[in-house]
């Protein structure tokens, strides 16, 4: 069993000329195939006027993950980082980073995805913005 921080960002598409994004970071203890324990969850919302670039995405993830009190490698899907090679992305982070590998990693990212998506939908409905 080991700790990771699974991260997912929702809302990387334009709505009302803006990009309303929600980043969810989940600290979990996992095995190769399961999530054993959820340690902590942090959610942050961001908005941008232009499409986010790789450096913006990294900044968003770093800002969210630094609020997590538990250690662990940051894990995301390949698409989150515009399918850039792992070594390129990892060199841009100030902490350890890797793409999803095991079933445990994938389940954790799925959890982070549900959290960020639901939070974004709630925020958008609060703001009175159509989510589609």
């Amino acid at each position, binding site marked *: 069993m080991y700790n990771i921080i699974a991260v997912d960002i929702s809302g990387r598409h334009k709505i009302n000329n803006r990009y309303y994004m929600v980043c969810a970071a989940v600290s979990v203890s996992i095995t190769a195939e399961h999530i054993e324990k959820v340690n902590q969850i942090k959610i942050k919302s961001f908005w941008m006027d232009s499409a986010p670039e790789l450096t913006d995405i990294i900044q968003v993830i770093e800002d969210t993950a630094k609020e997590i009190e538990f250690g662990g490698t940051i894990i995301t899907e390949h698409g989150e980082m515009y399918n850039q090679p792992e070594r390129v992305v990892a060199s841009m982070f100030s902490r350890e980073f890797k793409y999803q590998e*095991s079933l445990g990693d994938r389940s954790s990212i799925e959890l982070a995805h549900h959290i960020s998506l639901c939070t974004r939908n709630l925020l958008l409905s609060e703001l009175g913005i159509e989510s589609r």
Partner: protein
Amino acid sequence: MKRVILVQRNEPTNDESRNIRKLIELHDLARSANYKVVGDVTQTRRPDRKYQIGRGKVEELALMMKELGADGIIFSNQLSTTQIYNISETCKCEVIDKFQLILEIFAKRATTKRAKLQVELAKLQYELPKAKAIMSLLKKEERPGFMGLGSYEDSYEQDIRSRIKRIQKELASVQKDNESLRIKRHEYGYSIVSLAGYTSAGKSTLFNALVDEDVHVDDMLFTTLLPITRALNICGRRVLLTDTVGFIEDLPHWMIDAFRSTLNEIFLADVILLVVDASESPGIMRQKLVTSHDTFWEQIKGVPIITVLNKIDRITENELKERLENVGYLTPNPVAVSAKNSLGFDELKMEIYRQLPKWKRETVSLPMSEYGMSIVSWLFNESIVHNINYKDRIIVDFEARDEIILKARIIEKKDKHGHNHMFT
């Protein structure tokens, strides 16, 4: 045997080790399809729209073909119809890509109706997006009149579409039969264990060693195409072990779809044995494990996985330890075995037993009569009898799945209330 040259275009962003591994895999695939590899060419660059590799490299390739007396070219990258056309025009030979090569291997190995249907479906799905372009290139010379060509292309594409639909329908009916067979097996108290893993990991060797069978094993990729199932007894539990087709990296989704009915055999199992070749370097093991996890994801939900580290006879104990440290985070419930030398089978069977759907332990009291004995014999068939005591009554201590326990309880209850009827 056809002589071929292998060509691979490497992405500038790819790791060198990954490129080498892919090329070795292509060598193995070509060998499995009965080709003799006379040379290989690699180039690192972004894809060229016309030739996939650079134009100069294609001309170099044409010269190399003449020098080495090769009859064909196999590309590691997926080629578009135009690229195939352009390269074969320059090199004056047959050009295929990795996926067509895999299809060739599958077609050669397919023996049953289901396998043949699956291969045909995969072939048609590969051909579909190219259908229009193929016709356009073939009928380049004859363009009679206004819109003369259009109807050719459309009807050819339509033909393929209708054939795909027909095969899918036929496969679905085969699938339904398998589905009911699987339910029946569960009803009869069998648990289903599937062997899965990267191609050439030694799944069939392990299968043979476990069930004492003689399934065809070869040092080639994709030796097993259709699932083979045999019964096995694991610590008293009746288990059906299924050998399946191996995974491969970058298999396009249409190919996975075509072989879904084969892969379902893995996904609907009670326990999955993920076989890994432990004699390979940790880096390669990691990549192959990631591919396996990738194939499993979204298909299996909560099915326990046992990682079988095979071929440990080829490595030392320290090397095994080192590999486990490196890839431990990708290996759920690891067990080290050597299928060739039958090493570690007891541990593997114990682990399978531990991961099988849980059976409960119960004690029932039956009358000492012919009827009681018939129940005992039924319990022996359907469960693991741990202890049996013949006194005034027969006390049976057994382990079984819920339905059997429930049935036994009803029989016991009815007997206590004086109902004595024949058990059927």
